[in-house]
């Protein structure tokens, strides 16, 4: 077992993935009268050591399900989770090992912390699960709290979550993750439920943890601005599939997928012409369209640009295929790949 606290920081070459998904699919059996929901529908995604990857997309596109699958909290229907180069088995021992080195931070710290546990208990829990109660437990808890920006840590030990502010609660949740000295943090919308004024601080904290301890992170968000601010790499998800991925500068400043463009166009600071409101019904994972899954809402197809490029048929009838999980810039769009594009 390696010492997770000091993961290699500056590797010149693209860092070896610590955690990833390979051909991952998660389907939920439909409730009364509804079909099977293919929440995650074929995703390859790698998170390198010390890398921050943003997973962006509208709500309902499967981001949380993917995040949970990465922690073994939902079982993939197909494909696998790869941790340190090995496919994750779902036996209790394997899961426990994964859950020591990969930590989850949820959106709403009010719900994510047990209301009847003190800050100390909340932070110490992870250590107790994995190393039992040790004599130096208190030092570790104090250190984790301090790293999460709660200083002096002793002042917080006996507080209950309801006595803290939203930002402080999220720091407690992060401290609870840090106490295990993980290699990766999977953060599901970590600031979405916080006041705008503290969002920046929490994001700053994640960045500093990466810089200081080489902590990798998958940050799930529906907020592209946030992705821009903290991520090295972005993966844009639509209806269970990653449709565009690459270094964050490429994806967000030179988007190639019509979906990414539409998302960006509604940002106030985008300045790139008209905001593009997507037509058509909101996506429904129980009825994923054939062909390109975005074609029914695609503004490029609707405007005739796809037809002009000669790909309209393929948009309707041919699935663009899965993107690889590596760091390279890629897009799953027939039109973006069309040679005679205007």
């Amino acid at each position: 077992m390696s010492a997770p606290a000091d993961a290699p920081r500056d590797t010149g070459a693209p860092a070896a993935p610590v955690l990833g998904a390979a051909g991952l699919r998660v389907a939920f059996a439909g409730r009364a009268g509804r079909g099977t929901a293919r929440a995650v529908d074929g995703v390859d995604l790698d998170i390198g050591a010390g890398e921050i990857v943003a997973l962006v997309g509208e709500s309902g596109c499967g981001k949380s399900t993917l995040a949970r699958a990465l922690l073994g909290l939902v079982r993939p229907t197909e494909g696998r989770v790869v941790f340190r180069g090995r496919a994750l088995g779902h036996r209790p021992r394997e899961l426990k090992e994964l859950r020591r080195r990969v930590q989850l931070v949820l959106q709403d710290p009010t719900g994510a912390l047990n209301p009847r546990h003190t800050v100390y208990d909340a932070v110490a829990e992870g250590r107790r699960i994995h190393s039992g109660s040790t004599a130096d437990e208190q030092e570790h808890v104090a250190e984790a709290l301090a790293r999460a920006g709660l200083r002096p840590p002793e002042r917080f030990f006996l507080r209950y979550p309801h006595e803290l502010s939203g930002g402080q609660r999220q720091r407690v949740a992060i401290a609870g993750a840090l106490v295990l000295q993980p290699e990766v943090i999977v953060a599901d919308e970590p600031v979405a439920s916080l006041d705008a004024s503290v969002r920046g601080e929490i994001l700053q904290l994640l960045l500093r943890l990466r810089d200081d301890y080489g902590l990798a992170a998958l940050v799930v968000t529906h907020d592209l601005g946030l992705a821009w601010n903290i991520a090295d790499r972005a993966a844009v998800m639509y209806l269970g599939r990653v449709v565009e991925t690459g270094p964050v500068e490429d994806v967000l400043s030179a988007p190639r997928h019509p979906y990414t463009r539409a998302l960006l166009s509604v940002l106030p600071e985008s300045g790139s012409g008209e905001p593009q409101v997507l037509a058509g019904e909101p996506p429904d994972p129980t009825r994923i369209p054939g062909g390109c899954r975005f074609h029914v809402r695609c503004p490029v197809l609707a405007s005739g640009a796809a037809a002009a490029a000669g790909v309209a048929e393929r948009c309707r009838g041919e699935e663009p295929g899965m993107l690889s999980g590596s760091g390279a810039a890629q897009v799953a769009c027939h039109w973006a790949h069309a040679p005679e594009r205007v």
Partner: protein
Amino acid sequence: MDTASRAPAGRTAAGPPRRGRPGLHPAVRYLGGRVITALVSLLAVMVTSFFLFRVLPGDPVAALTQGRAVSVDQLEAMRRDFGLDQPLPQQFLDYCLGMLTLDFGMSYEYRVPVSELIAERIGPTLLLAGTGTVLAAMLGLALGTRAGWRRGSLMDRVDTGLALTLWSVPSFWLGLLLIVLLASGAGLFPTSGMSTPGVEGAFNVALDVAHHMVLPVATMVAVVYAQYMMIMRSSVLDEKGADYLTTARAKGLRDAAVLRRHAVPNALLPTVTLIFLNLGRVVSGVILIETVFAWPGLGSLFYSGLRVPDLPIVQALFVVFAGSVIVMNLLADLVYPLLDPRVRT
């Protein structure tokens, strides 16, 4: 269910200090409010008890002298003795003054102070009701936890179905069934009373009483455990989707430990409150069960008192029974803030 809405009400009552009389700590104000409410309810119960039993059909004097040749003078004397010749307002005043000094009057039938009868009978009732309630609560909490955690499973459906069936069965019917099956037929357990005459030695007496308790306690547990089970089941269901359980699981805690360390303690919080509120039903349950099994407690005393009607007995017991419900509710209100750190500030 109005009981369910009481816990949150308790929550806000202990909240941050609001405008109002200065100098009173909010906790003191909260306690004071609850105690006053309880006292007012008790007063209402006392008044109700007096009038309720006076509209019962039946004349105690006639009932007590049934089958004997008594003269009109003797009947008049008895009436005077009982104070029944007084005008109603006077009777009411005497009753109230008596109650305030814990003097419940003289039983018509037994000719001894009601307070003596109660003192003599309260032990067996507490023994039966206490044992039955503790066992029913333990069984109900365990089964309710299991059923809620695995909602929709076969086990949940079987356990819940059985509990609700037993709950809807009248306790005297179930009691008689048990008597027929286990006592009369197989002769395994005594069917009435609390002890066998002539048994000596502390250990043997205890064993004998326990033997007598089997059927009444079993009947009581079977009929009432469903309420504890259903409360716990729904509390566990409420907690089941909570994010903090996901957090704990994601840290590597096994499912059984997630349930034990997180879900159960938090589900117990609303459950304890509701259990206290439901303890009132123990009283009505115990009256029937004591009657079926001739258990020498307050319940059978009440039942026999009703037939006369022995007004001092039934009035006093009504106040005792209703009073115990009120006290339980008060306890629930007082215990709740101790358990929930969100209220305990």
